[in-house]
């Protein structure tokens, strides 16, 4: 949309766009575009979070007001089935920040044990095979935890210790039985993601490694940067 007058008034400024989004002045279509961007661009999402923090100083301007009690029961009906103990959504332990916080807080040697304790098999059928790999290196402070849930073929990788590197990405690699590393993708999103096509399913003993790569991941088929952490997947 080159005729959008906004584009000619001022140079694109991501920070100003993030601020406009947080303030809420954009129209519905612009908001939808920004929301998509937040979902896929973590640097931009960080700008949005920063502006939310800045403007949070105005939050005292919102006066409290008790909602009518029926709202709570409507929420309960929408989220929970008749059986109160069964949440309507699967909590998805491996997708839960609380789970990861527990993982991080614990001595990493205990990770597999904790995961085993916290893991609740789905109520029907066989418990899905779940693998956990604890990735570290003596040479770096970086630590990652990878959880793979066989039942859904989804994998989640989280950076649990160390620091992001500016203008670089951490990329996760799967190394099956001494084969060449296959990229699982850049580590960044919070969500569990499906195993990329062409990546063999990990098993007990599969090695995961993380390398430091240019933004967006290695430009070639294999890794180009140094290995910052590695570890072996264990079934729990």
């Amino acid at each position: 949309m080159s005729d959008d007058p906004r584009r000619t008034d001022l140079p694109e400024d991501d920070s100003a766009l993030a601020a406009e989004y947080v303030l809420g002045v954009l129209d519905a279509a612009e908001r939808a575009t920004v929301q998509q961007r937040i979902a896929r661009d973590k640097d931009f999402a960080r700008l949005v979070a920063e502006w939310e923090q800045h403007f949070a100083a105005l939050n005292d301007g919102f006066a409290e007001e008790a909602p009518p009690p029926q709202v709570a029961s409507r929420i309960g009906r929408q989220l929970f089935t008749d059986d109160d103990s069964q949440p309507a959504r699967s909590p998805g332990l491996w997708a839960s920040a609380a789970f990861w916080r527990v993982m991080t807080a614990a001595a990493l040697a205990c990770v597999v044990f904790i995961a085993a304790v916290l893991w609740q098999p789905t109520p029907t059928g066989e418990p899905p095979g779940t693998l956990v790999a604890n990735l570290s290196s003596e040479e770096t402070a970086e630590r990652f935890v990878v959880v793979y849930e066989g039942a859904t073929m989804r994998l989640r990788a989280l950076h649990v210790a160390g620091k992001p590197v500016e203008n670089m990405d951490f990329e996760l690699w799967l190394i099956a039985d001494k084969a060449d590393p296959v990229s699982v993708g850049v580590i960044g999103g919070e969500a569990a993601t499906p195993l990329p096509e062409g990546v063999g399913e990990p098993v007990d003993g599969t090695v995961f490694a993380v390398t430091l790569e240019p933004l967006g991941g290695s430009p070639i088929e294999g890794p180009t940067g140094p290995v910052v952490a590695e570890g072996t997947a264990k079934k729990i």
Partner: protein
Amino acid sequence: MPGDESLEELLAQTALGRRAAFDRLYERTCAKLFGVALRLLKDRAEAEDALQEIYVRIWNRADSYAVTGASPMSWLIAIARNHAIDRLRARKPAHEGPEAADHLPDPAPSPEQRAIASGESQRLARCLGRLEADRAQAVRGAYLEGYSYSELAARHAVPLNTMRTWLRRSLIKLRECLEE
């Protein structure tokens, strides 16, 4: 011990699918979030519907709280504001525009300014204070009342593109000041 948990703990427990924690989180935060929805939407029935959806989102997204690094209350308020503003924007097509370019008075700058007391609040207040008064007022009006660009343009009696340009410039100035 119920009642003693921090909001962080309640969010962490909610992320694990624990309903009791979610219920306590609701008890502790619903008045604030309803206040946000009500102020932005200015319609009780819609604010109630919005509040329901806001807590459904909180339940579904509690697991992403940790990565944001925000205080739990500002994270919750951001979810509430975002949802309420999405509703406002869906409600009024942009081209409909405000009735007339009336100079409607902005709400008295009282509650938020009175509340501004320390730290981050002071910094924002100081930086807003460096903007021209009407621009600072536009920023506050957008944040607290949910005004869109076209509503702001009407309130300040300037063309839409002028409003866009000067609000953007103000935001860039604001950021520079906040980073000082």
